[in-house]
């Protein structure tokens, strides 16, 4: 059953861009930026590839919509094809990206932003775009140095920035996973939106907890990292 070797005819087109910065913000975790004048809605994703031979990977934009720099947050996956190479990229190198797309859209409605690990990315984009009014951000990590953008978020969101850490502890952090934090709450507002972003198990567990606490499923928006 023959078929052209090209990856896929239906693939969203990729464009070459030049990397402006590739900054390691925590061990093995980078913010990569390139310049592209493009309109997007905070929360959207882009496809990223180093060449056109391998299928691109999808990353949430983590920069605001008010700058010409588009950034992504990524961590090195040792067994992966893209991220070990991406981590070696420097300013001036080429990268292939798609235009932003997707329907995980931030807005000004009251909402909970719930993330684990680098799943903070779309929420940081929303925050940078001025959408943090009436928001509570719950970020779960396993180690304290994984609270990316902590200083800025802490200063701006105050009590509405809830840090959950499953392995390390300090006085400003809930000791446990995001799911444990949510289960510890007596109730959650039923008229809020709930945005979830992270690995599938967290998203599935949080989604079940929210539904169990009476949140209508239509108000739950999930983005899973594959």
């Amino acid at each position, binding site marked *: 059953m023959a078929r052209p070797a090209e990856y896929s005819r239906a693939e969203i087109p990729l464009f070459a861009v030049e990397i402006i910065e590739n900054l390691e913000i925590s061990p093995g975790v980078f913010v990569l930026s390139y310049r592209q004048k493009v309109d997007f809605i905070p929360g959207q994703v882009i496809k990223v590839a180093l060449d056109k031979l391998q299928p691109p990977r999808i990353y949430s934009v983590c920069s605001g919509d008010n700058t010409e720099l588009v950034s992504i947050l990524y961590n090195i996956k040792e067994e992966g094809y893209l991220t070990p190479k991406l981590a070696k990229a420097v300013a001036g190198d080429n990268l292939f990206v798609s235009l932003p797309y997707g*329907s995980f859209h931030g807005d000004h409605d009251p909402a909970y932003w719930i993330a684990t690990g680098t799943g903070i990315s779309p929420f940081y984009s929303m925050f940078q775009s001025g959408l943090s009014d009436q928001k509570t951000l719950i970020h779960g990590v396993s180690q304290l140095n994984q609270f990316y953008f902590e200083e800025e978020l802490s200063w701006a969101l105050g009590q509405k920035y809830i840090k959950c850490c499953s392995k390390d502890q300090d006085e400003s952090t809930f000791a446990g996973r995001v799911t444990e934090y949510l289960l510890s709450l007596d109730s959650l507002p039923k008229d809020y939106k709930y945005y979830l972003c992270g690995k599938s198990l967290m998203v599935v567990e949080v989604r079940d907890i929210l539904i169990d606490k009476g949140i209508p499923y239509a108000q739950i928006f999930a983005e899973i990292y594959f």
Partner: protein
Amino acid sequence: MVLKDQLFGKDLEELQQVSLSLGLPKFTGKQLADWLYKKNIHSIDEMSNLSKNARDLLNEKYEFGLSAPSKIQTSIDGTKKYLFPTALNKFIETAMIPDEDRKTVCVSTQVGCKMGCLFCMTGKQGFQGQLTAGEIVNQIRSIDENGEVSNIVYMGMGEPFDNLEAVLKSLKILTSDWGYAMSPRRITVSSIGIIPAMIRFLNESDAHLAISLHTPFDEERRKLMPVQIAYPIAEVVNEIKGWDFGRQRRVSFEYILFKGLNDTAYHVRELSKLLAGIKCRINLIRFHPVPGTPLESPDEETITMFKDLLNAKDITTTIRASRGQDIYAACGLLSTKELSATKQ
């Protein structure tokens, strides 16, 4: 203790390599394949056409590699569910569905699943690990119906195209002359549509393809199946349209009906637009609610009407018979319960 490598699940080339590495003739590889995949034995010692020396050499480094089910449930309709233990106290499920002269086995490809579909019980376990080709084929070999299986569907726990290497290797073992020599036309692999893996599967296998569709609308599908962001159904279908499936190979679309969500005339109209130009079949599936999901099944009248409307649009549509409901034959519940029990 040194863990021995397993023979069951190796393809012919690997078995020939095993033979050569032990100083045995290359043709011993073919003999091994015969014993592993064509005869009903359970140990290396039973390989009676190999010399005692060859069997000792094999026993030193390898084990046969079969794994027996730890639990079997039988439904009043004859459907059976097998629970197989895997490494690290995890479990997978296999269903055997008898139907007149057919015995269809539904195999798992992963322990848990990464995809997080709203309606799926397996997703609630998260992703626990990949199955090897041997563990996939073992689900056919180590059940009571070994030797009587007429059809195989890769529709159990896990996303087959997220474990493509093992799935392709298992298909090779099942369909090669040196293996089970089954016709690939009796095997269907079901996927949510991971496009790059689907292309490889279409190139490298002749088995049927089934795609989990569940709604033609982008945003609605995204709510049900988060993978829609990565592989939108329109892209999956566009890719399929580029392939010539010929007369023998079949592509079908799985469509679970959810009350008030994806069971309307609008969905029928959009489905007919989406699938225009593809010779395919839609399998409508009744939803059997699992704990923690807000979804419900529509009534029988709605299901029949939905089927009739699709048929009227010239899309061959069938309603899949529900089987093994009393033992939750298809929802990952048994293994999730077992997993919870081992965690306590």
